[in-house]
């Protein structure tokens, strides 16, 4: 079996919504170059709807594919729905990810949430901090322990 599903390879080779957005309403960046992956997500919001999304990713094939898939899944959707996007849903939409690559889908989920949070803060929209959980969500991205 190949490392990646056809859907992952498709999104890796033809990433959707890749690029920058100079007039973004919210920008979220998660990950860490030391760990080897960083995702930056830009969103445009109108009347509570995410009208446009763009991303830039530094990372492996599954990180690029996860970002691409996440942008497709939230584009045109209400913010409230985007906040419900789970890493599981991203991984499922990609027809699965290898176990050691699941953190890439977690990163995609976090990038979306970080962009929404940034949008709320920039526009002084009150929100319940609980929906974004703890500030060190990056912990969720911690890899499995190195082989010993």
């Amino acid at each position, binding site marked *: 079996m190949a490392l990646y599903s056809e859907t992952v390879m498709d999104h890796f080779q033809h990433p959707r919504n890749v690029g920058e957005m100079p007039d973004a309403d919210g920008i979220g960046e998660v990950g860490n170059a*030391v*760990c080897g*992956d960083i995702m930056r997500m830009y969103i445009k919001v109108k009347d509570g709807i995410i009208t446009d999304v763009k991303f830039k*990713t*530094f*990372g*492996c*094939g599954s*990180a690029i594919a996860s970002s691409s898939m996440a942008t497709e899944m939230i584009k045109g959707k209400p913010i409230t729905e985007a906040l419900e996007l789970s890493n599981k849903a991203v991984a499922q939409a990609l027809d699965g990810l290898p176990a050691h690559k699941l953190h890439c889908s977690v990163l995609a989920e976090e990038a979306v949430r970080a962009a929404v949070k940034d949008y709320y803060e920039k526009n002084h929209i009150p929100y319940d901090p609980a929906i974004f959980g703890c500030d060190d969500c990056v912990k969720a991205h911690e890899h499995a322990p*190195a082989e010993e």
Partner: protein
Amino acid sequence: MYVYADNAATTALSPRALEAMMPYFTETYGNASSLHSPGQRAAEALQRARETVAAAINADFKEIYFTGGGSEADNQAILTGAAIGARKGKKHIISTAFEHHAVLHTLAKLEKEGYEVTLLDVHKNGVVTAEDVAAAIRPDTALVTIMMVNNEIGTIQPIAEIAAVCREKGVLIHTDAVQAVGHIPVDVKALGVDMLSMAAHKFHGPKGVGALYARRGVPLVNVIEGGQQERGKRGGTENIPGIVGMAAAIAEATTDLEAHMAYVTGLREKLIEGLSKIPHSCLNGDRDKRVPGTVNFCFEGIEGEGLLLWLDQKGVAASSGSACTSGSLDPSHVLLALGLPHEIAHGSLRLSVDAWNTEEEIDHILWAVPEVVDYLRDMSPVWDELERGVTPHLI
């Protein structure tokens, strides 16, 4: 065009080796331990192969022990050095931080059993010095094990000088020469080593077969217990087709070696020159002390796995030391041992060419790599910050 530039991972089987192997699958299939004529013909083939492999590294045929590959040879050599040392109460082993895992993991196992291991720094250029080794040797040092050529960056270690230091201090010396044999001259007498590992599939032989050279007088410890095969040092019916293939491949690889080295060095220089034109890139490992065919570069702002997947699409098979390709948290221990920061080591690319590659293939690589690097940098937030001056370029 599809270019195979991952010869340090494994090589294609040479047609001559394949041809030599074929009769031993279906015609001369006897067990070399059997007394009947099919068995004896297999035993004769085994002996001829042993002599051929020995001659290729200037050893005596009695000093060659066939194994199931390079990793097994490394395991056996290190366990042997450890056992010999333990009998004299010596339980200290010296190695380097960028050895193959077959060495590092065997050493880690020995550490748990009470041995002490010193891993030498490999410096920025990826070359250990004999002085480093001399300074690390203690009265209780049992073994020094240092690779001849590093598998990821291709740097050549001064094994002859290191072995001279070891001899003077009465310490056993093993070298993992898996990436050296068939690519640069390997002469066990000139090197002065006690043990040396090799693997057939790194020089166009078959996979699953290798050999351990052990100088006469070095009593090997078994990794595999069994019958009297390999003079009782490696149990199990001999893999005659594999061993015959290894012998054919080593003979072919070491014939006209100088000419092959000159040719492959030319390909490598062209690769280094071409890849150096990519901005914010760096060659890893010493510029000159390197095996002819291996080149390792880092490209800032991108991650290695994406690079490999795209290169494969563009017709280049390569490898990387990024964490994503190693399946662990950290990028390659070899690149980290050179002192490269994690974020740089993630963007590494190893290209390993040999005498089977052509100039046209190098041109193809030099077309594909810059294109893919540009594409990935364009979508990289890390590159964006480097270019906007938010974070400083490190290379």
